[in-house]
């Protein structure tokens, strides 16, 4: 190695020595034969000889690469027009790919914070059994856990947002998960501080405890290790902090804290079950076993089961980003097409230059360059080009991501969203840059290296390698290019169509000037329905007295923000098959909800003061429900009954029909059947406060918070946003993909037309002589134009 470096430093000396040595040889020879030209001829190809010797000195390889690169720069500078187009084309392709990669890699490398997450499963009862039935039979999982063999561990969890108050800072709303002690064993991660739950913590008489996520510990307590042992009020219940989990561990998703799922508590209904598969057990085997156990459970209940009772599925499927995978793949393909088009384009440009370069290359071959060497030289040129493209692409990607990030600033980002320029992205950028260099460089390089030396030198390049074969090749490339472009355009068209459908479907409410926020009353402090009703009544009075507020109401669900599910029956309904009642969506709203949303009833009336009395029997339905159950009839005055969690209400009376409002937005063309219950009838702890304002809604946020806290200083107000913002965020998801596709298709179209232009222009310049001849023998300009156009269209048609 040392020797190598020494030689590297002395390489000029070595070069001169070789020169001297060969000159001496030549002189000796000339002296001997007395004939200098003969001696020179005998010596053979001196350049090649030198080259071979240099290569022996090892660094020659290095040096020749350096020379190639320098030469490539010179050549590219000479043909600066072509170079510019190529670099920009590649830059667009590479830039677009990098942007998409940063999305996709963020999504695909998303870490749910579970050890060996692929072995963790969600266990759920199917409709036939009913989750409630299951939890009634085995609320603490004791029976299941003792019977199940295919799962190493089984645990239950329940999401329940909580209000968090301590001596430091404002009360805050956090995502809390009630979880069995075995849950941490399933997650498989150890706390970084303190301990996790033990079985004893699940007992109803045990000290209430809480385990924090790393995020909460960091954000609220500045990573203070003395937090362990402190007492925090969680939904007004004092709890001892016993542990902190490592960063990234937030099971199931976006969790802030965990509290034990207390055994035998009445409100433990609807837990979700999750477990870790035992070693070597397949998903199907676990499903079978769970099903068998569930059937034993079901046999004790009067209903007989049809079909499977239990489902076991990978936990990873729970995360939205896994469902988005196919979409990501589609976008990745689309952007790959763009890069491919860019490559084809550049390959075409290089091919178009081939005849000009054929002469130069012939000379290089003639004076002793090997074909491999020529191909290498040309590939180095491609590499330099794609390096330039990579640089432009990086700049474009950087700018694009910054812009995207800025335009998304007002929306909360999903956990997997990471748009920073990280190492992984650089590796990807470098890899595709090199990859593209081969992709677009190889064909022209091979083509050129096959040049017929003597012919090319004699003809000054004309008709050498730019002959029929070259033209046919570039023609094929353009056809390919146009095909890809058409595919992208069609894709973009489809995307736009579905987007227009979503955007174009009215939600059914006036979204302007509506502020929404969430308020969740802790059950410990508001145990009776009357407490909830009176709190919201007082809050409404206070809010509506604020200047700029027109009306205020609470609702269980916002438009396009889901709904509750009820089973439904009406008086005089024919008995349903198998005793199962139809299912409808429901919202619990307070009196002025429809006033805030500016929705007028189609028939009857909306809620009034008289419906605010506890136990009021008035309900409102939407048009979709009315036409489904009473086609052609007036539903006002009909009696209906709804049930949730198996407990049926008494008979209710329909007082009005309102126009359809979108609640679930899976399919924008269909409306759900909806029933609206008055808040006094079915008070909710967790609600959205919605208010119509006369001023820009976000200016009132502080005043709203103040009013809430003046009623209950430990009650957090959270998720405060205008309704328009929420809708915009919802639309954004599809909007992103539409925007991406449109941009890709536009780039593709641009590139394809540049490519087509280059090829046609090139073939015209190749045929100048032929065209001249045609003119001379009487062809008109019009004939010539048709000839050229005909050729262009012939290619397009194939595309």
């Amino acid at each position, binding site marked *: 190695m040392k020797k190598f470096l020494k030689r590297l430093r002395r390489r000029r000396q070595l070069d001169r*020595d*070789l020169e*001297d*040595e*060969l000159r*001496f*040889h030549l*002189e*000796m*020879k000339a*002296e001997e034969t007395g004939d200098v030209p003969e001696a020179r001829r*005998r*010596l*053979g*190809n001196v350049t*090649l*000889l030198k080259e*071979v*010797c240099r290569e*022996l*000195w*090892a660094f020659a390889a290095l040096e020749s690469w350096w020379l190639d690169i320098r030469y490539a720069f010179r050549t590219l500078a000479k043909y600066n027009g072509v170079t510019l187009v190529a670099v920009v084309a590649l830059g667009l392709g590479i830039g677009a790919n990098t942007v998409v990669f940063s999305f996709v890699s963020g999504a695909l490398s998303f870490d749910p914070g579970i050890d060996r997450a692929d072995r963790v499963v969600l266990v759920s009862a199917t409709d036939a059994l009913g989750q409630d039935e299951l939890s009634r039979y085995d609320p603490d999982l004791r029976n299941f856990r003792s019977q199940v063999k295919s799962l190493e561990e089984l645990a239950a969890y329940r999401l329940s947002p909580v209000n968090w108050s301590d001596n430091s800072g404002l009360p805050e709303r956090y995502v809390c998960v009630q979880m069995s002690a075995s849950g941490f064993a399933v997650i498989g991660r150890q706390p970084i501080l303190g301990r996790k739950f033990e079985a004893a913590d699940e007992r109803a008489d045990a000290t209430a405890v809480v385990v924090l996520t790393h995020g909460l510990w960091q954000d609220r307590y500045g990573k203070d290790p003395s937090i362990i042992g402190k007492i925090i009020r969680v939904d007004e219940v004092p709890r001892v902090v016993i542990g902190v989990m490592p960063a990234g561990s937030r099971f199931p998703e976006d969790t802030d804290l965990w509290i034990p799922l207390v055994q035998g508590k009445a409100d433990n209904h609807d837990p979700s079950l999750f477990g870790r598969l035992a070693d070597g057990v397949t998903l199907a085997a676990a499903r079978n076993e769970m099903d068998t156990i569930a059937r034993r459970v079901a046999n004790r209940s009067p209903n007989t089961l049809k079909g499977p009772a239990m489902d076991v599925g990978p936990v990873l499927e729970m995360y939205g980003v896994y469902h988005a995978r196919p979409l990501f793949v589609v976008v990745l393909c689309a952007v790959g097409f763009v890069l491919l088009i860019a490559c084809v384009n550049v390959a075409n440009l290089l091919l178009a230059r081939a005849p000009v370069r054929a002469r130069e290359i012939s000379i290089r071959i003639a004076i002793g360059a090997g074909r491999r060497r020529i191909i290498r030289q040309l590939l180095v040129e491609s590499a330099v080009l794609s390096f330039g493209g990579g640089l432009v692409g990086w700049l474009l990607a950087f700018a694009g991501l910054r812009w995207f990030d800025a335009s998304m600033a007002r929306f909360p980002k999903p956990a997997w969203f990471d748009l920073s320029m990280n190492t992984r992205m650089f590796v990807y950028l470098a890899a595709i840059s090199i990859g593209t260099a081969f992709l677009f460089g190889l064909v022209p390089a091979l083509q050129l290296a096959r040049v017929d030396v003597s012919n090319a030198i004699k003809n000054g390049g004309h008709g050498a390698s730019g002959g029929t074969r070259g033209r046919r090749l570039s023609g094929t490339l353009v056809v390919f290019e146009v095909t890809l472009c058409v595919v992208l355009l069609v894709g973009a068209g489809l995307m736009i169509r579905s987007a227009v459908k979503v955007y174009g479907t009215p939600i059914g409410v006036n979204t302007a000037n509506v502020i929404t926020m969430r308020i969740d009353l802790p059950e410990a402090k508001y145990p009776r329905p009357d407490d909830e009703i009176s709190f919201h009544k007082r809050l409404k009075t206070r809010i509506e007295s604020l200047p700029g507020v027109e009306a205020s109401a609470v609702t269980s669900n916002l438009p396009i923000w889901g709904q509750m599910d009820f089973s439904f029956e009406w008086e005089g309904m024919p008995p349903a098959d198998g005793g199962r009642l139809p299912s409808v969506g429901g919202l619990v709203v307070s009196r002025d909800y429809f006033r805030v949303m500016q929705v007028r009833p189609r028939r009857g009336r909306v809620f009034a003061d008289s419906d605010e009395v506890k136990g009021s029997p008035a309900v409102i339905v939407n048009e979709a429900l009315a036409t489904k159950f009473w086609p052609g009839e007036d539903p006002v005055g009909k009696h209906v009954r709804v049930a949730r969690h198996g407990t049926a209400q008494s008979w209710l009376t329909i007082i009005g029909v309102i126009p359809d409002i979108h609640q679930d937005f899976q399919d924008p063309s269909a409306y759900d059947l909806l029933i609206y219950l008055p808040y006094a009838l079915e008070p909710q702890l967790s609600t959205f406060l919605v208010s119509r304002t006369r001023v820009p809604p976000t200016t009132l946020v502080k005043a709203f918070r103040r009013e809430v806290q003046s009623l209950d200083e430990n009650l957090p107000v959270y998720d405060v946003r205008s309704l328009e913002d929420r809708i915009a965020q919802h639309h954004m998801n599809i909007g992103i993909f539409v925007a991406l596709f449109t941009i890709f298709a536009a780039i593709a179209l641009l590139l394809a037309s540049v490519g087509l232009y280059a090829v046609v222009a090139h073939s015209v310049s190749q045929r100048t002589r032929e065209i001249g001849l045609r003119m001379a023998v009487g062809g008109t300009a019009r004939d010539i134009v048709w000839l050229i156009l005909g050729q262009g269209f012939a290619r397009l048609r194939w595309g």
Partner: protein
Amino acid sequence: MGKEKQPGELVQGTLDMLILKTLTRGPMHGYGIASVIQQVSEEVLRVEEGSLYPALHRLELDGIIDSEWGVSSNNRRAKYYRLTALGRKQLVKEASNWSRLAQAIARVMEMA
């Protein structure tokens, strides 16, 4: 590359050995080495410059021969090569290999 074999072309792999053997006569420049091989073989073996110099440089890099610049008999600057200790050992090895090979070939060719 199907080039036809010319009479007098060296058997592959023997050029190194011939160079080493020639250098046992003392330090010599490249032209001298070529001439000696040509003379001694009575013009049968012709050393192509295109192979000679690369071979010399390779041997030098491997430490089998050594070189220094000197003045030739007609007062010109010339690069003189000479055997190193390693080169002598290499020559002994290659010579014995060669004679074994040559005898073997001879025996096959003289087969009755």
